[in-house]
């Protein structure tokens, strides 16, 4: 996943909160709590970066935590909060 291009799903809206953000998917109506501001920064950066690893770096996540963040992102992918981007460059 780390080397793939991903993006926030088009049907998802983020609402900033002190703990991170609420993420709501208007299509499948799933509500998710992003419990860290860093995770919110990563999710927002996904669409602008060539791959997930670059988004993590851009959000300032230390390399040691990349695997843990990849797990969290995989969780978000299961409910289509984020999805793989077909094109290789930023949309």
């Amino acid at each position, binding site marked *: 996943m780390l080397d793939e291009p991903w993006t926030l799903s088009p*049907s998802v*809206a983020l*609402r900033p*909160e*002190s*703990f991170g953000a*609420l993420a*709501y998917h*208007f*299509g499948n*109506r*799933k*509500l*998710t*709590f*992003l*419990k*860290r501001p860093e*995770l919110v920064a990563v999710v927002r950066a996904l669409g602008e970066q060539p791959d997930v690893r670059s988004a993590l770096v851009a959000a300032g996540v230390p390399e040691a*935590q990349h695997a*843990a*963040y990849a*797990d*969290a992102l995989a*969780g*978000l992918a*299961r*409910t289509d909060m984020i999805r793989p981007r077909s094109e290789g460059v930023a949309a």
Partner: protein
Amino acid sequence: MTIAPARPTPGTLIEEFELGLDAPICLTWELTYACNLECAHCLSSSGRRDPRELTTEQCEAVIDELQRMQVFYVNIGGGEPTIRSDFWHLLQYAVDHQVGVKFSTNGSRITPERAQFLASTDYVDVQISLDGATAEVNDYVRGPGSYDTALKALQNLQDAGFQDAKISVVCTRQNIGQLDEFKALADRFGATLRLTRLRPSGRGADVWDELHPLPEQQRELYDWLMARGEDVLTGDSFFHLAAFGEPLPGLNLCGAGRVVCLIDPIGDVYACPFAIHDNFLAGNLLTDGGFKQVWQTSELFRELRSPQTGGACAKCEFFDTCRGGCMAAKFFTGLPLDGPDPECVQGYGESALDQLNQSGGRTIPAASQDHSKAGPTRNQPVMLTLTRRPDLTPPSAPPTSACAESPLAGFTPPSI
């Protein structure tokens, strides 16, 4: 679903929520007090429309405000919301303004044409209320014919290709034994089952003693949810059951005035849908500067968001999971708000009620509003069942026929 990357920080999110958010996560909006049914346990004592109900323009202004606050979805209910002639317009208006809609209905207006329309929208969820897996159990509380109406609506939705409707069930003493049947019914219609807790709110106060699940049924429900709960919705309403041991999935806290609230048909804002009472009235969005103003500055909500002591419950080892249970359930059964939930699974609620009853100190709060119909209609449930007099001996004896000629008919001499 929760995301806990890197290191877990248990409890922090719950603590954040207990202190309240700048905007609710979601809210319930009762569009009208008018209803074609007269369910015995109606939480809002609905029946008749209130002449002060918000106009179409006022409703649109509320939606605009919710959009600005990024409240992503509203649970629309009533009364029967589809009775409003502008209901479908408001539904479309909300969806067009990034406010998703889940609406609850008894199904009476979900015609094949409406089902087609609903199937063509993306952001709308439909909940059909059904309080029995059989007509007998459902109609007992929701009124004659309401089971057939609900099933017809589900059929119309399925035929139109509507995906994943919800069957919304209030769990009662009469239907806890039907959980598997409810699930089968949901599967049959390609729907998702949603179970919620009966509260002694509105007309529910009148029938709570008869309808609320017995202690052993609470256990049955808990075990069922633990075993099969992953594809069943609960609106996070059973957090009092967490005191059985492991908490159920979802948010285990009372969100009233902190992350949820209720807007009633006349624009009054209450702490939660089950607390339509002056004691939980935060303000009115027409007269108090709009919804955001009420949500962020009301004295009541500020109080609800301040740290709670937990009272007697704070000593209980399960307090961390059940958080003292449901505020509305306590209030409308006459229990103190910092005391145990009346359905506390450790039995503290029952003993608190017994104590109050014995000392004569139990006062059930009078209703602040009642929109029930003035006279009975043909849709009114008749909560009577045919039984035999319990004092007849032997217990299984048939009643004495009026034609029995013996002067001693029906008389069984006491055994010596």
